[in-house]
């Protein structure tokens, strides 16, 4: 993927961050993964969602960083938080108890039901690539009201079959989460640098619902490792507004 489009007005990474940010409604309580989810969540908070509550697994509740945190344990998250608690408490009293509206996750690999692999490529005991592992993701994916996933699009990332399910999306499809007794509704959107995918309301299979400006359906298909379903009412993602871009760049510059 080229990361420059539209005559250099914005990059595909910026489009991805802006599109992901737009998914976050105002006033929602959001458990934020580090990296792209944190960028998007903080952009949302500074744009259309000033009352979104950002929670980090480092125990920071209601953080309002004025720059992007370098890691999940950046001191700016605790300094600007409404409350700081320990890691045991953040996972049990806040995440597990079902208090979080939206989980915002990155991923290394994803399949058509938005299941996530961040553990290994290849066999578990003799992996070709050892990825970082689970971190907070499995329980974020299980226990938040809904989950937004954001990752760059490629055939290595959007795969037919995962070698390892680190975090459950919609499992094997319709009804699987309910059958397992999970209380969260699972992934509601996947935002890549090419497009937006949403689970089909019935089958839960990820469906292309919007392509970013300048991206064709074939671009998305050729970067996707499975036979991609396309929505009948396929749209085009509105390009980043100048305010969105300005805010995003300011956040990044401050970091």
């Amino acid at each position, binding site marked *: 993927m080229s990361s420059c489009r539209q005559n250099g007005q914005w990059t595909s990474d910026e489009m991805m961050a802006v599109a992901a940010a737009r998914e976050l409604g105002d006033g929602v309580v959001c458990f934020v993964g580090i990296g792209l989810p944190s960028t998007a969540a903080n952009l949302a908070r500074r744009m259309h969602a000033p009352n979104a509550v950002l929670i980090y697994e480092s125990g920071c509740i209601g953080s309002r960083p004025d720059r992007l945190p370098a890691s999940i*344990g950046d001191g700016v998250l605790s300094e600007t938080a409404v409350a700081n608690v*320990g*890691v045991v408490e953040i996972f049990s009293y806040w995440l597990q108890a079902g208090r979080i509206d939206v989980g915002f996750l990155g991923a290394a690999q994803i399949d058509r039901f938005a299941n996530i692999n961040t553990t290994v490529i290849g066999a*578990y005991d003799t992996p070709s690539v050892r990825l970082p*592992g689970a971190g907070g993701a499995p329980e974020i994916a299980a226990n938040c009201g809904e989950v937004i996933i954001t990752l760059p699009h490629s055939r290595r990332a959007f795969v037919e079959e995962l070698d390892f*399910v680190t975090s459950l999306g919609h499992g094997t499809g319709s009804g699987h989460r309910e059958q*397992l*007794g999970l209380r969260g509704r699972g992934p509601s959107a996947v935002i890549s640098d090419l497009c937006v995918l949403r689970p089909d309301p019935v089958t839960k299979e990820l469906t292309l619902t919007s392509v970013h400006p300048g991206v064709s359906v074939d671009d998305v298909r050729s970067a996707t490792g499975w036979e991609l379903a396309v929505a009948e009412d396929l749209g085009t993602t509105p390009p980043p507004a100048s305010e969105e871009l300005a805010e995003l760049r300011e956040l990044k510059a401050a970091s």
Partner: protein
Amino acid sequence: MGEFLSLREAVARYVEDGQTVALEGFTHLIPFAAGHEIIRQGRRDLTVVRLTPDLIYDQLIGAGCVRKLIFGWGGNPGVGSLHRMRDAVENQHPCPIEVEEHSHAGLAERWRAGAAGLPFGVLRGYVGTSLADHTKTIASISCPFTGEELTAVPAIHPDVGIIHAQQADRDGNVMYWGITGVQKECVLASRHSIVTVEEVVDEFAVRTGGVVLPAWAVDAVAVVPGGPHPSYAHDYSDRDNDFYASWDPIARNRDAFANWLAGVTGEAS
């Protein structure tokens, strides 16, 4: 008893080959200096436990101290992989290591159970994932009142728990603040504990969110200013993000790592 020892003495007294050792600190207050002392003292066959191995366990693994790793997320935050860990897992270099893999929520619950003197903890976790297929320390448990199925994980009880704190007072009580992680659980779940601190103060100041561990709940206190570098100590130092970035090429290359290691052990080539 909050006994003041040098870091060298504390590690020599409490850390032995073959033990289970935890150096905790959730992205903040990571006790790097203590990890380097373990490397210098040449400990071997350790089972090491941490939510996020971070560079500190990459270094211990690369130095050949580790036989088994119990962890939740093994990356270089914001940079990429832990290449010494990957070299051990993928290529058994410098020695094979066993991996016991959990989620952060699961490991946090294992710490809680350990601190609480219970043999196991319970959580809503792992359901539908592949983790339980590969990790033996994940089990199912039924609620005796509702019949609902939940997940059980065993308590962690290290032989030695090591953390870094901002301050000790002269009685050996310890205080830390900022992102407080699972350090209290680590100290309380461990048979013995070592706390490195930035400084000794006459009296603790008022701090929102400050956690105090009484001296009698800690074995040894060692004054090691800058002990968490390249991690940080809130109100004392900043995270050295450049070091985290520079670690990537060091850890990718066995020779570069050997060179770094020689700098730690004082056997520079």
